[in-house]
């Protein structure tokens, strides 16, 4: 166990995969000479050579398509897309090919592909580099979507995705890359397919994922000072959702605040909310609240960007709202 950054967590897993299996190769814009837009693959080109760490042209649909073909042909590509905004260019390959081929070939073809991409805002990168579109992928049967929120998960989820025989999309919130946490490089990966309670509490549940987990934990700490104990559930896997864990936390607390950095309309928070209504309706003691990004393209100006995103203060307000002065 050591302290490490989130990007080191990712890099550790990439290196492990490259060492473990000669079929593995990295592919993406600037993953080689530049070491990755967020330095997740720094040093790997030198260690594994240009055959296995390959810089791709600025053509997302093309190189994702190439990776899908490689996966069908027996290789184990791990693709990096610079941001989820750019991943839209590869939606055709991901949605029409990667997600469908096992089904359309009656299981004769599988696509063991890992696609990592940065998501989220908060670093003044402008609207075209700041959106949270993980729900676009979580909508699609045939894809699995993981959202590591901790350094350990950043490592474990790459390894678990690599072990999966089907395409897995990993969304990494860009504000997390430089953050530090505990990393056990030798531990067997914790299963990424279920949610984890990051903080227990009795009064309300915050259900969140990715970059919003740390904000939710800060909010929980602020609320605890006022005697309000919230449970914080980290979804971790966005498709398939861990419905049992979502139902279980609300069965304990009877109140839910859903924190999701994407927009409210048609977002993952809406999916979690619908799950609660379908599966935990009789446990609800207050309407469900959502804390999402304001419905504008994420602004560039710092004060506007901050105002557009979920914040601990907004989460605190939402929790107090569902409690309605009850604590």
């Amino acid at each position, binding site marked *: 166990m050591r302290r490490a950054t989130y990007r080191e967590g990712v890099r550790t897993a990439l290196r492990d995969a490259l060492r473990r299996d000669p079929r593995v190769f990295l592919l993406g814009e600037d993953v080689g000479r530049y070491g990755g837009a967020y330095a997740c693959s720094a040093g790997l080109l030198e260690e594994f050579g240009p055959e296995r760490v390959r810089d791709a042209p600025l053509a997302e649909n093309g190189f994702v398509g190439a990776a899908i073909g490689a996966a069908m042909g027996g290789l184990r590509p791990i693709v990096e897309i610079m941001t989820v905004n750019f991943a839209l260019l590869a939606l055709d390959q991901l949605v029409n090919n990667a997600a469908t081929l096992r089904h359309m070939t009656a299981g004769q073809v599988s696509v063991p592909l890992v696609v990592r991409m940065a998501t989220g805002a908060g670093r003044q990168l402008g609207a075209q580099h700041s959106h949270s579109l993980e729900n676009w992928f979580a909508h699609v049967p045939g894809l699995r979507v993981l959202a590591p929120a901790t350094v350990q998960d950043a490592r474990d989820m790459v390894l678990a995705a690599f072990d999966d025989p089907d395409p897995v999309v990993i969304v990494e919130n860009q504000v997390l890359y430089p953050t530090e946490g505990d990393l056990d490089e030798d531990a067997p990966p914790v299963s990424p397919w279920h949610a984890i309670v990051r903080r227990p509490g009795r009064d309300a549940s915050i259900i969140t994922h990715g970059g919003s987990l740390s904000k939710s934990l800060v909010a929980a700490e602020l609320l605890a000072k006022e005697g309000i104990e919230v449970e914080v559930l980290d979804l971790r896997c966005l498709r398939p959702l861990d419905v049992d864990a979502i139902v279980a936390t609300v069965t304990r607390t009877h109140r839910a605040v859903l924190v999701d950095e994407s927009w409210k309309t048609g977002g993952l928070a809406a999916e979690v909310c619908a799950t609660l209504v379908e599966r935990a*309706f009789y446990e609800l003691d207050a309407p469900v609240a959502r804390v999402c990004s304001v419905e504008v393209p994420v602004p560039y100006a710092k004060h506007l960007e901050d105002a557009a995103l979920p914040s601990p203060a907004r989460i605190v307000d939402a929790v107090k709202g569902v409690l309605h002065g009850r604590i």
Partner: protein
Amino acid sequence: MGEFRMPSLGADMAAGTLVAWRKQPGDVVHRGDIIAEVETDKGVIEVEVFDEGVVETLLVAVNAKVPVGTPLASIASAGSIAAVPSAPSPVQAPPPAAARVHATPLARTVAKALGVDVTKVHGTGDGGVIVRADVDRAAAEVTSTPRPDRMRQAIAAAMTRSKREIPHFYLAHTVDLGPALTWLSARNEARSVTDRVLPGALFVRAVARAARAVPELNAHWTGESAPPLPYVHVGVAVALRGGGLVAPAIHDTDTLDVDGVMRAMADLVDRARGLKLTATEMGEATITVTSLGDRGVEVNVPVIVPPQVAIVGFGKVVDRPWVVAGVVVPRPVVTISLAADHRVTDGHRAGRFLASVVAFLEDPEKP
């Protein structure tokens, strides 16, 4: 939509007679308007309305006498004035459609499980919605309210009978508890907190031993006489949190040591407060002990519980100047009051009984 109900026009008013309607269906009413006249024991009183809106339906005919709280008329809020139907006559008025109750799904689930009618629950959630806590509170009121009422009636009946039929006389004695408390603390020293014996157990045990030594006060009045009973079941008065009290019996108290008495008392208090006592425990005491020391009461002169013939009250243990061997020293003392039935016993015997209680307290090792 609001309801205009038979108001309580005095703390003792249970019902009132509707004498006249001042408003008719379709009339607009404002808060404070006189809507009806109601006759009570104190005369005819004009009553005002507390809602804004339109009188929708008159639910009670003139000259009907109805309990306080009965809906007399429904009042539509100003927003739904357009929906006011043409005025039906009060006698044919159909009951108003039940207003939609806003309760959370969990509140409804819990209400169903607890048998609570959500239409009668007061909501404290956002916008007055009924939340689970409101249902829990309503359920607690439903289960606890009738109990103290019945208990109050039972206490009233027993105490009235006691004071009407039993010629009480009272004796009191103040005892130096120093030796007993020293003995007790030495005994408790090596024990865990849960095994410690409190002075109350000493009091109960002393009364039980005295009742065996002077059996005349350990008896039930049968209507003619009160033959001494061959066993001693000391009743222990336990105040209940919701009000009222019970005095369940500890069987064969005189055969128990202080530890046994302590355990039995703890068990009785627990079960009494959980309302889990059995009927036999409630009716079997042969003599009763009551202590109000923890309430700061120094002298507690109690009322005998029929058909018993004696009751012993203990006050608070207080430090007082006390003369020991000709010297004034501070001592912890307690005042013991005996109320006895003069039909059964006299001051002489009762005094012996009290002296026996004192003797057992002064020497806890006394066989």
